[in-house]
């Protein structure tokens, strides 16, 4: 058993969490804002995640990926990964890098609220129409741009309270 200083292990845990990707989007779960907290006690790591959409089929995959990543770390004796309902997942939880990654994936990403005017990710026009609130995944809505005539998808968080 390798013994590793607590702060070194905590850094290693965050580093490896940053390598775990969402299975439906090219973005790490840290940039997507899923990690609520990390606790480490005597080599036992406990990570609490905030679910994006409660019915998202990726939640189980993410949980497994996180656990596998954690137990592969030297100094980790055991890992528990749980979802918490303590707080809702909101757009504010997504990092600036995460927004950039979602945008380069071709998604329109609201700055603060889903209710704000949508922007075409291709030409930047506001002259767009919502086609459907329900897109190819639970977290995407579909639109049409009337300026450049492209269809596009917009990142959709649960409705603002």
């Amino acid at each position: 058993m390798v013994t590793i200083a607590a702060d070194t292990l905590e850094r290693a845990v965050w580093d490896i969490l940053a390598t775990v990707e969402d299975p439906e989007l090219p973005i790490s779960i840290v940039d997507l804002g899923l990690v609520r907290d990390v606790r480490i006690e005597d080599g036992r790591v406990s990570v609490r995640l905030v679910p994006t959409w409660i019915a998202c089929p990726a939640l189980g995959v993410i949980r497994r990926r996180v656990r596998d990543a954690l137990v592969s770390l030297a100094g980790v004796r055991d890992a528990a990964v749980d979802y918490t309902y303590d707080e809702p997942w909101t757009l504010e939880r997504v990092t600036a890098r995460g927004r950039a990654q979602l945008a380069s994936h071709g998604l329109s990403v609201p700055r603060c609220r889903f209710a704000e005017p949508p922007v075409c990710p291709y030409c930047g026009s506001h002259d767009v129409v919502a086609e459907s609130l329900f897109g190819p995944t639970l977290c995407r809505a579909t639109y049409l741009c009337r300026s450049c005539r492209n269809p596009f998808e917009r990142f959709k968080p649960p409705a603002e309270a």
Partner: protein
Amino acid sequence: MPGVLTAIADPSVRAAFREWLVRIADDELVIGHRHSEWTGFGPDIESDVAMSSIAQEELGHGRAFYEQIAQDEGSDIDRLAFGRAPHEYRHAALLEQENDGWEYSIVRLVLYEAFEVARLRLVAASGQEPVAGLARILTREERYHGLFAETWLTRLAGGPPEGPGRVQAALDAAWPDALGLFEATSADDMLLRAGVLTSSPAAQREAWIDAVRPVLDRCGLALPTAAAREGGRRGEHTPAFDRLLAQMTEVWRSDPEARW
């Protein structure tokens, strides 16, 4: 970490709250299954995807509530969802009825979503964590279902002459079952007395009628006057549920021990 039920000291209150969790989960499971029957059959591709997404979400919500029970009782959530006898399910009859045309499904969605949001707010205010937190989160997700439902209701009721008549007939058919959502049992009394719930089924029903009335008014629909048809909350279901349950559980029953 103790779950929501373990944390309730009084066994009668615990049993009553469990009953409420089962009701919520069963409502979601059954309506989710009904919505999913539109997959591949929606009137247009967007509505097909929308109804399928709503189905997926309701099934996921049902799962989250079953998990709360299973976690406390050390049981298997698939067995909880699929392994009970028909009379052990506690959903209201509204949710088990066949999809009798798109207009019926839309009317049912409008009526149920209004009910569901109000019920989630009650649970959110119950102080019973983590279920209260779950309910707060779900209230935000449900908003999009309600928007979709009301948009379609407006479109159908405002259509050519045939539309309003068909929507009104669907509303008349759904109404007694919708009132059955508020069927009271001793569990409701128990939770009211314990202060877990802050509104009686009768008061919830009045608030729900106040919420759906303006929506129906705007669409030129008349509020039906028929009385409630009850039984679902006590485990009495219609033949439509026997058929649904048989189909829904067919794969699970083929090998209940299988890990998927």
